[in-house]
């Protein structure tokens, strides 16, 4: 039983590590602020979700699990807000995104 949980944790950590490293690479590689927000979103959603899932497999049911899930919920609620505020402010300062525009832009 312990072995199975360990394997699950290992898989989750592997996927999480992969997604945060790819996200950080994207943060460096992508061309402008608006594209980089997507990479940061990958770190915030994919990375955290899998790491927390992996740690939940290790604890079983206790108060620690609740705290882990709380961390996940906080990051889940706050990450889109920061992304949106950053993007909105960049638009307010008249930075136009690279790439094609479809239809009328606000």
């Amino acid at each position, binding site marked *: 039983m312990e072995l199975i949980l360990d394997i699950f944790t290992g898989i989750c950590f592997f996927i999480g590590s992969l997604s945060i490293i790819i996200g950080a690479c994207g943060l460096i590689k992508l061309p402008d602020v608006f594209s980089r927000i997507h990479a940061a979103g990958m770190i915030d959603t994919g990375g955290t979700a899998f790491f927390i899932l992996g740690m939940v497999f290790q604890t079983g049911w206790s108060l620690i699990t609740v705290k882990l899930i709380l961390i996940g919920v906080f990051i889940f609620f706050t990450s889109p807000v920061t992304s*949106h505020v950053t993007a909105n402010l960049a638009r307010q300062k008249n930075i136009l995104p690279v790439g094609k525009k479809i239809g009328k832009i606000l």
Partner: protein
Amino acid sequence: MKSLILFLILLTLWLLMSGHYSILIISLGIFSCAFCVYVAKRGKLIDDEGLPIFFIPRLLNYLIWLFKEILKSNLSTAKVIINGKVEPETFTVKASQVTDVAKVTYANSITLTPGTVTTKMQKDVFEVHALNSDFGNDVRTNEMDNKVTWLEGKK
């Protein structure tokens, strides 16, 4: 009624976070939770926006769908970053929700799925930035919009 629900939520949080259950500490917790509720009530923070109860019956279903969606778009974002085929595009979509909370939920759901970000909001028109035309098409099919309208349950 709503302040009672808020009080219970706060108290549950306190009990879960503290982990020490003696009479003194629990009574301190009850006191501070009551004080928080009082401050929130004085600041008129307790309304439909602060505590959207009408989401609750369909929330679980929506969350499961959202997680699935996030997983899918994480995969495709990773592919885009590795391939390096970035063709960003910007477009506007219309939100069909009634209340402000539901609109915010829709905008946040768009932002939460990597690959699409809401950059500007004006009443019920969102400006969305997508990493690729595939992500753009995902938003433009209005599947998420319909889901959030269904979650709101006002129509």
